[in-house]
């Protein structure tokens, strides 16, 4: 009986020992697994960091290449100056991005743009002043009030023309009128002169025909008497200065007249 009890105790102790051994083995396995997991994780992390570094390195290289390209583009922009098209767009107010960056760095192009813009601005200002000054004394266009009041009455277009519009025609009409008046006056003057000349030419004939010989003789006597008096006065006044007036022009003229 005792032996049977001892055997049972020994079996149970053996079972417990086996269980303890199995537990110990399981624990060591877990620990091993944990250790290996840690090692795997560490290796994984290590490999990941290597990848990141690689990726970062590649990214840096790409960025630097891009920066090099940008720098080269900027250098090219600085060296080439603005094209005509870019300049026109700049004057129109549409500033391209490249042109804006170029203007910041290129003094030559910015100076030229400023000079052209100033010149156009000065021209606009002066021409505006000129136009305002020129139109300050203009008359307001003449509009037929019947048209302005409702448009029921329509006049011919030529009647609606303003004074300024008719200026060339008015000058033409004025010139023609002046020519007509001056030409008519000249012709009237010529007619008058010719009539007077005719009258003068005809008058001696009619007078000579109408005057009687007795009247002519009396007139000649009167003229010779007057001539004698005048000659006496002339000789008296001329003798004071020691002059001889025996052959004076007046006497000859009178003699001629009497002979006629």
């Amino acid at each position, binding site marked *: 009986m005792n032996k049977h009890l001892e055997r049972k105790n020994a079996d149970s102790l053996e079972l417990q020992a086996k269980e303890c051994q199995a537990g110990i083995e399981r624990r060591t396995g877990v620990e091993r697994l944990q250790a290996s997991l840690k090692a795997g994780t560490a290796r994984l992390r290590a490999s990941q960091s290597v990848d990141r570094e690689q990726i970062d390195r590649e990214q840096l290289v790409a960025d630097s290449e891009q920066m090099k390209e940008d720098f080269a583009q900027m250098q090219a922009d600085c060296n080439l*100056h*603005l*094209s*005509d*098209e870019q*300049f*026109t767009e700049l*004057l*129109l107010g549409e500033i391209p991005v490249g042109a804006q960056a170029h203007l910041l760095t290129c003094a030559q192009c910015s100076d*030229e743009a400023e*000079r*052209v813009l*100033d*010149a*156009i601005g*000065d*021209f*606009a*200002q*002066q*021409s*505006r*002043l*000129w*136009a*305002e*000054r*020129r*139109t300050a004394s*203009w008359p*307001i*266009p003449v*509009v037929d009030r019947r*048209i*302005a009041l409702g*448009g029921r009455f329509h006049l011919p277009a030529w009647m*609606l*023309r*303003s004074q*300024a*519009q008719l*200026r*060339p025609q008015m000058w033409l009409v004025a010139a023609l009128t002046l020519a007509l008046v001056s030409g008519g006056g000249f012709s009237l003057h010529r007619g008058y002169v010719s009539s007077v000349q005719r009258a003068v030419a005809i008058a001696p004939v009619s007078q000579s025909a109408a005057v009687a010989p007795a009247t002519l003789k009396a007139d000649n006597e009167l003229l010779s008497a007057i001539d004698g008096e005048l000659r006496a006065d002339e000789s008296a006044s001329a003798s004071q200065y020691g002059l001889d007036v025996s052959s004076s022009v007046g006497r000859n003229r009178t003699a001629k007249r009497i002979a006629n």
Partner: protein
Amino acid sequence: MIDCAMNEARVAEVQDPELHDLVLHDIEALDRVYRARLLRYVAYLVGDLDLAETIVQDCLLKAYNGRDGFRGECSVYTWLVHIATNLMRDHQRTRKFQFWRKVQKTGPDLSELAGLLPSRESSPESQVLACERAEQVSVVLETLSPNQRAIFLMRFMDEMDLQEICEVTGMRISTVKTHLHRAVKAVRLKLGGRAG
């Protein structure tokens, strides 16, 4: 009321449809607001002051008489420039115009305004330089083709948009830009710039 409207119109470039009506229905307002701008535009294009004045008067009368036909799709000034452009074309077709253009050239003379520049340029030397620059631009304008000159004036003198210029001239926007580009290039060369 009309005086007030005119002043507002000068400032606001007559963008308001109500002001359009006010200005268009009063010949005096129309004349005072637009005649100087129109004269500048037409005088530089035809190169003859008497003819330019005639065209401007005719344009204002035509606009006033045809004000019912204005639909308000553009500004009044754009509409007036369109009318003036058509009138100039009519005049330039006549042989009489071509003859007198050869005989005499009496375009705007900016030198008569040498002492009238406002105080943007402070010193007398600066004013003289400004006059010289403006005169150079004026000289260049005479060498441009009629289309280039018209588009240059519309863009830089009247500050019209490219779209408005297209409406007035009937050209495509690429054509307008080409004319502008050539005109600007000529001005740059005259002012001592380099052609790129």
